[in-house]
């Protein structure tokens, strides 16, 4: 295809970037773009259009830089950068997003050849497992503005394009991760370097020099512990032309002993400050003492409390077995050798095997102090700490809204932005809550009202039950089928061929289905629909109890992405009890219909259930919708559709039951990935749901 002309490009940009109002100068951009071939033009313009649905200024910034970037970076890296622009804007606003736009200029500025970058999303999983395989605290890998570590999470940039080949860029990041790991594992982060550096003439330079010393020490240590990695790091340095600076060889030799510590580096610091500048190596990353100190301060108190609480539990457990009275004493012995870090704890001299959680806490505490301080080993007294404050689980889900940290304890789910043709990461803030049970006569009344229907439902469900049965005339089996044998012998006497199917075999019931029901609790269900839903659920539960399938029921509602709520009515593990009945009775219409997060969360819950067939049935009264939010309209429809596609990909069979008569035009598209049924009359719902389920799982 012929390339687009400058005028054609300008027309597109005028439209997407709304230049009539924004006055973005698209002329030079169009001039640069018209020189590209058609395929490259399409690539850039497609992304400009997609980013413009998020913010026009970002799209303009992308368009301005893209033609030049195409010469220097591979397409996947450019796409990753575009997504990073939008994500940063979502997360931190325009100022931060523009900083990301600027940052791209620093990639590969010095050389002219094109680079295949290593993208965070591609490598985070592998490097996350890599660093967890090494010993010590379980570090997370997170996306950040540079390579650095606060002691709990290693930050890596979205795109790394320092070397031409993607594999080398990956190795570079792996080296960085190992070095950052070594910072926590071999004591660098145990000291606060700021007071030491402040005593020297140029504290900022002193910190850089100290970081250089520590890099030399940790490199030597890695050479000892992970020789294969060390060789790769040396090869990387050779290809980057990096080496130990002039005058630093003496320091390197002093720090070569694997037993050397951060104190040795500190001792060498004054001399190092007098030496030449240590230019940071590419994989060295940054050392941010403020962030490390802040993270450590928050961790120390929390881990002390957690460890002491766990020890108190452990003590209680052990006490039950022996009748020792009086104070107990925990002691810990650390074995710190090579990549191995092991702990043994003793209670009054008797060794006990620490549970995994305790072992991880001990590792973390040891890395902070280089020992286990004795006061950490005193089991917590009754009421000394409030366990809910230090536990992993959040407290009252409603209480969090009162504080500033309203995202605390919530689960995050992505949403599909159809304009951007990409996910918005961690977009929906989801929380599970209980439906307040209502003890009334609703259950009884429903049973009375539908007694005839219920009898039929129970009967038909019972007929579907797959139970153990004896299969006769099998070629193999546990026992001889006497009837078959008699016939076979008679046949043989008659001179006919004798059957080989002479055994009986026990057929095991194989019906192995888990189903999650997702019930619309949005404000529009108020009245008739709500009542029909509740009746339908009662009938369904009654019938399902006959069938023996495992099932869960959740209601969904919410206001904006910040407050997506799933209401527990019955979990998979819960029996169908009076409490569940009261919760069904207590289902009330709430707020809006944001559906994507609910489908994603229930898919995740279904994924945890062991079953051969997993079914997700949504019950809703219409199109997805949310309060003053893009969710109204195509965004919501597309996100719901994508969530259903994801569920399908995860091996779940989604099915939708809807009562929205007016919207036949969008339903086939939205539920395309799922099968669906539209009920014309709400009153049919109780009668139909059981029947639909029966057909679906027959």
């Amino acid at each position, binding site marked *: 295809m012929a390339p687009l002309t400058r005028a054609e490009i300008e027309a597109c940009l005028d439209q997407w970037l709304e230049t009539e109002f924004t006055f973005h100068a698209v002329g030079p951009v169009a001039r640069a773009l018209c020189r590209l071939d058609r395929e490259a033009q399409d690539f850039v313009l497609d992304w400009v259009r997609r980013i413009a649905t998020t913010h026009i200024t970002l799209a303009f910034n992308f368009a301005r830089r893209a033609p030049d970037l195409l010469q220097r970076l591979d397409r996947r890296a450019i796409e990753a950068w575009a997504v990073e622009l939008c994500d940063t804007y979502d997360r931190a606003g325009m100022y931060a997003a523009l900083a990301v736009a600027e940052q791209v200029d620093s990639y590969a500025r010095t050389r002219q050849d094109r680079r295949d970058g290593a993208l965070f999303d591609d490598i985070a999983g592998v490097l996350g497992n*890599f660093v967890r*395989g090494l010993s010590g605290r379980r570090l997370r890998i997170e996306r950040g503005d540079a390579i650095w570590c606060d002691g709990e999470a290693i930050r890596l940039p979205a795109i790394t394009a320092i070397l031409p080949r993607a594999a080398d860029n990956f190795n570079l990041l792996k080296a960085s991760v190992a070095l950052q790991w070594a910072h926590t594992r071999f004591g660098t982060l145990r000291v606060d370097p700021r007071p030491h550096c402040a005593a020297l003439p140029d504290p900022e330079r002193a910190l850089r020099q100290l970081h250089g010393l520590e890099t030399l020490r940790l490199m030597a240590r890695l050479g000892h512990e992970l020789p294969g990695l060390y060789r*790769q790091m040396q090869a990387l340095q050779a290809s980057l032309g990096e080496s130990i600076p002039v005058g630093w060889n003496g320091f390197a030799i002093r720090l070569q002993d694997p037993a050397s510590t951060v104190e040795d580096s500190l001792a060498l610091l004054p001399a190092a400050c007098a030496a030449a500048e240590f230019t940071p190596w590419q994989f060295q990353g940054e050392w941010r003492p403020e962030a490390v100190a802040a993270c450590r301060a928050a961790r120390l108190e929390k881990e002390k409390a957690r460890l002491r609480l766990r020890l108190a539990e452990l003590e209680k457990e052990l006490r039950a077995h022996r009748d020792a009275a009086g104070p107990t004493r925990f002691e810990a012995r650390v074995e710190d050798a090579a990549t191995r870090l092991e702990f043994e704890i003793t209670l009054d001299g008797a060794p006990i095997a620490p549970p995994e959680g305790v072992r991880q806490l001990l590792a973390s505490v040891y890395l902070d102090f280089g020992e286990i301080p004795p006061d950490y080993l005193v089991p917590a007294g009754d009421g000394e700490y409030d366990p809910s404050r230090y536990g992993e689980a959040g407290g009252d889900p409603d209480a969090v809204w009162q504080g500033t940290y309203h995202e605390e304890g919530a689960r995050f789910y992505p949403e599909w932005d159809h304009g951007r043709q990409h996910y918005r990461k961690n977009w929906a803030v989801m929380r599970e809550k209980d439906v307040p049970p209502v003890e009334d006569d609703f259950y009884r009344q429903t049973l009375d009202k539908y007694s005839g229907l219920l009898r039929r439902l129970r009967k038909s469900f019972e007929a579907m039950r797959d139970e153990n049965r004896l299969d006769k005339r099998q070629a193999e089996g546990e*026992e*001889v089928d006497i009837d078959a044998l008699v016939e076979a012998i008679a046949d043989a006497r008659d001179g006919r061929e004798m059957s080989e199917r002479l055994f009986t075999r026990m057929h095991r019931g194989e019906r192995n289905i888990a189903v999650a029901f997702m019930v619309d609790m949005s404000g529009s269900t108020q009245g008739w629909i709500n009542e029909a839903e509740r009746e339908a659920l009662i009938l369904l539960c009654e019938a399902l109890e006959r069938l023996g399938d495992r099932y869960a029921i959740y209601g969904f509602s919410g206001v904006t992405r910040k407050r997506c709520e799933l209401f527990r009515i019955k979990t998979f593990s819960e029996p169908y009890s009076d409490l569940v009945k009261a919760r069904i009775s207590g289902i009330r219409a709430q707020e809006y219909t944001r559906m994507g997060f609910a489908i994603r969360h229930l898919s995740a819950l279904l994924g945890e259930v062991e079953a051969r067939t997993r079914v997700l049935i949504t019950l809703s009264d219409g199109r997805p919708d949310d309060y003053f939010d893009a969710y109204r309209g195509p965004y919501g429809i597309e996100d719901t559709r994508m969530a259903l596609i994801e569920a399908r990909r995860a091996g779940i069979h989604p099915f939708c039951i809807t009562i929205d008569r007016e919207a036949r035009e969008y339903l086939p598209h939205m539920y395309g990935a799922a099968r669906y049924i539209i009920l014309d009359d709400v009153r049919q719902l109780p009668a139909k749901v059981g029947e639909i389920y029966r057909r679906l799982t027959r």
Partner: protein
Amino acid sequence: MSHTLTPEEHFILREPYYEPVGNEIAIFEAAYVNRLPVLLKGPTGCGKTRFMEHMAWRLARPLITVSCHDDLTASDLVGRFLVRGGETVWVDGPLTRAVRVGGICYLDEIVEARKDTMVVIHPLADDRRTLPIEKLGQLIEAADDFCLAISYNPGYQSVLKDLKQSTRQRFVALEFDYPEADLERRIVERESGVDAAMAERLVRFARMTRNLKGSGLDEGASTRLLVHAGKLIVSGIDPVSACQSAVAQAVTDEAEMLAAIQELSASLF
């Protein structure tokens, strides 16, 4: 040359290599003398089956091993009628054979079997030591030398396949885990023939994979896998490839986890 043995002729003549971790040999012997059944707990590949072979050799009894699977029924253990030339013939199952001749019957991964197998195990596992054969209308009293041992991996089985209290409380339980680093090194060295330094690195590698248990791996590398890797190395395969084929591919299929384990082994060797 292969040769055919009936189960009760399966005596182990050469001492199987086994490094005791604690006092498990003494406990097993004491249980045997007192005619108590034994339950072996522990992750896969940590030496449970080898231990049984070793004990069978020590006690000079035939070892009859049954690997349980989810279609294994009581008839598979006890025996069944077969049709031969128009007649039905009773054939003893492996458990019955062991009960009759006084062998050691080792039911590996017992929880995988169907629930009806417990019916025949329970009376054998308490002081009655009898095996009811319903189809023959017989009750066999176990020979004095008979010993029942079962194994069970509490690590990765689902709640549906947990061992019931009524079963587990009949057995003397021995817990197995991966050996201590030094001991494991000795085992790898001895079994595969690699040198001490290589064995030590293999063990370090295994510890790294065991760190990943729970965050993507169901189970870390077992001692058995290390021995496999060691044997490949002795045959001239380079260590990183050996670890990839013998360990990483064996513990996971997930691409990201494979890559991570590959990076770990490349870092060590």
